[in-house]
C-alpha cells in the first residue's frame, strides 16, 4: 500500500513547489529529487498496468524522461497526479511496443507470469503462502484483462488507494466517470475471477 496522504506529496510539502520550479528552470538535480520521491509509486502503477517488471521498468523510465521534457507545462495542483497520468500514457506506449514484438520473445513473458518475487509472510505456512501467491497471480492476470481505462481506475483506487478526485485529475476526467469506470472494472473482475474459480475469503458465500 502506498500512503496517499497529502503530506507525502512534495508539492504539498513546504518546499515541494520549489523543486518543481527549479526543475522547470532546467535543474536536473531538483528533478531527480522528484524522481526519488515518486519512483516507487510510478513503477508500481506501471507494474500493475503491465504485469511485467521488465515492461514496467521501461515504462517508468520513459515516464520520467517524458516528465522531464514536459515539466514546464506542469501547472496542475498535484504533481503526483500529473506524473501518474504520464506513467499511464507510457504504459499505453509500452503495450503498443510490446504488441509489435514477435511472439515468444524472451523479453516479453506472458502477462502476469513474472510478478516479482515477494517476501514470504513469516506468519503463514508454506502452503498458505503458495495459495496466496497463486491468488495474487490470478488477480493480477484478471486485472490485465480489463480495458485500459477501467484497469487504470481500479489500480489507482483499489491497489494504490487513491481518492476519486485524484484519480479524476490523473485521468483528466470527471469524478462521475471515475466512479463508473471503477464500478464497471470491479464488476468485470468479479465475473472474471468467478469464472477462474477464484474464491477470496468471504467470496463464495454470496455469489449467486
Amino acid at each position, binding site marked *: 500500500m502506498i500512503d496517499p496522504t497529502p503530506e507525502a506529496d512534495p508539492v504539498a510539502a513546504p518546499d515541494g513547489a520549489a523543486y518543481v520550479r527549479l526543475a522547470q528552470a532546467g535543474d536536473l538535480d531538483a528533478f531527480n529529487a522528484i524522481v526519488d520521491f515518486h519512483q516507487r509509486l510510478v513503477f508500481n502503477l506501471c507494474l500493475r498496468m503491465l504485469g511485467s*517488471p521488465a515492461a514496467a521498468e521501461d515504462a*517508468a523510465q520513459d515516464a520520467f524522461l517524458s516528465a522531464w521534457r514536459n515539466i514546464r*507545462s506542469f501547472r496542475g495542483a498535484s504533481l503526483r497526479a500529473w506524473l501518474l497520468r504520464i506513467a499511464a500514457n507510457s504504459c499505453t506506449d509500452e503495450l503498443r511496443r510490446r504488441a509489435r514484438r514477435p511472439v515468444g520473445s524472451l523479453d516479453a513473458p506472458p502477462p502476469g507470469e513474472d510478478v516479482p518475487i515477494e517476501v514470504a509472510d513469516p506468519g503463514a505456512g508454506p502452503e498458505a503462502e503458495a495459495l496466496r501467491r497463486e491468488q495474487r497471480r490470478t488477480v493480477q492476470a484478471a486485472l490485465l484483462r480489463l480495458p485500459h481505462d477501467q484497469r487504470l481506475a481500479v489500480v489507482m483506487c483499489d491497489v494504490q488507494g487513491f481518492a476519486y478526485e485524484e484519480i479524476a485529475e490523473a485521468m483528466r476526467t470527471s469524478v462521475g466517470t471515475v466512479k463508473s469506470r*471503477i464500478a464497471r472494472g470491479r464488476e468485470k473482475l468479479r465475473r472474471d475471477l468467478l469464472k477462474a474459480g477464484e474464491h477470496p475469503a468471504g467470496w463464495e458465500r454470496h455469489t449467486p
Partner: protein
Amino acid sequence: MKNLLPRRHTPDIEALSAFLDGGLEAAQARALEAHLASCDVCSGRLDVLRALRAALRELPEAETPRSFRLRRADIEAPAPAAAAAPGWMRLAPALSALSVLVFAVLVGVDLSRGGGSSGQSGLTAAGAGQDQLQASRSLETSMDADTSKARTADDDAGAPAAGGPDVGETATEAYAEATALAQAAPAGAVAPPVASEDPDAATLADDAALIPASQPTPAGEQDNDESDLLLRTLEIASAAVALGAAAIALISWTRRRREA
C-alpha cells in the same frame, strides 16, 4: 435502493461500488444502508466487492528494480526514431515565417519594378503587386496571431484543452486567405487596370500614367515579361511553401498537445 424493491433484483453496481469507497452523498448512503439491511442480494454483492478490494490490496508493493534518476546522457541523448518526425516538424514554423518573408520581399521587388516600368503590363503589375502586398500583410498578421496563440496554448498544456478549436479556426482562416491570394495573384496580373477596384491601385495607376513612358525597347519588354513570370512563379511558390509549412506546424503542434 428502496426498501420496497423486490428481493430479487439487479443490484445497483455503481452505487454499491461508490458506497464501498465512501463516495456517496450522505442521503444516498443512508438510503442504501437501509436497503442493505433488508436485501441479501445487495449486501451479498457488497461483501463480494469488499473481498475483491481486499484481494487487490493484497497485491504487494514492489521495490523499484533500480533508480529512475535521469543522467545528463539520458536527457541529451538524441530523440528515438519515433520522435524523429516531430523533431523535424519543429522547424516548420520557422520555415513558414521565412517563406512569408521571402514572399514579402518578392512582392516588394515586384512593386518597385512595376512602379518603374512602363505600359499597361507594368501598371497592372503594380496593381496586382499592391493587392498581393496587402494580402501578404494580412496573411503575415494572421500567421503571427496563429503562432502566438499556439504558443500560449502550448504554455498552457497542463490545463484541459481550451485553445484547440480557436487555433484551428485561425489557421483555417489563414489558409483560406492565402488560397484566395494564390488565386487572385494571376488573375490580377491579367486584368486591365480599370478592372481593379482597389482605390490605391487606381491612384497608383493614375500616377504612373502621368510619368512619361521610358521608351521601352521590344527586347526589354520581353525581358520584363520573362522576369515578371519568374517573379510571379517564385511568389506563388513561396506562398505555397509558407502554407505547407504552416499546415505541418499545426499538425505537429496538435500531436505534441495530445502527447502532453
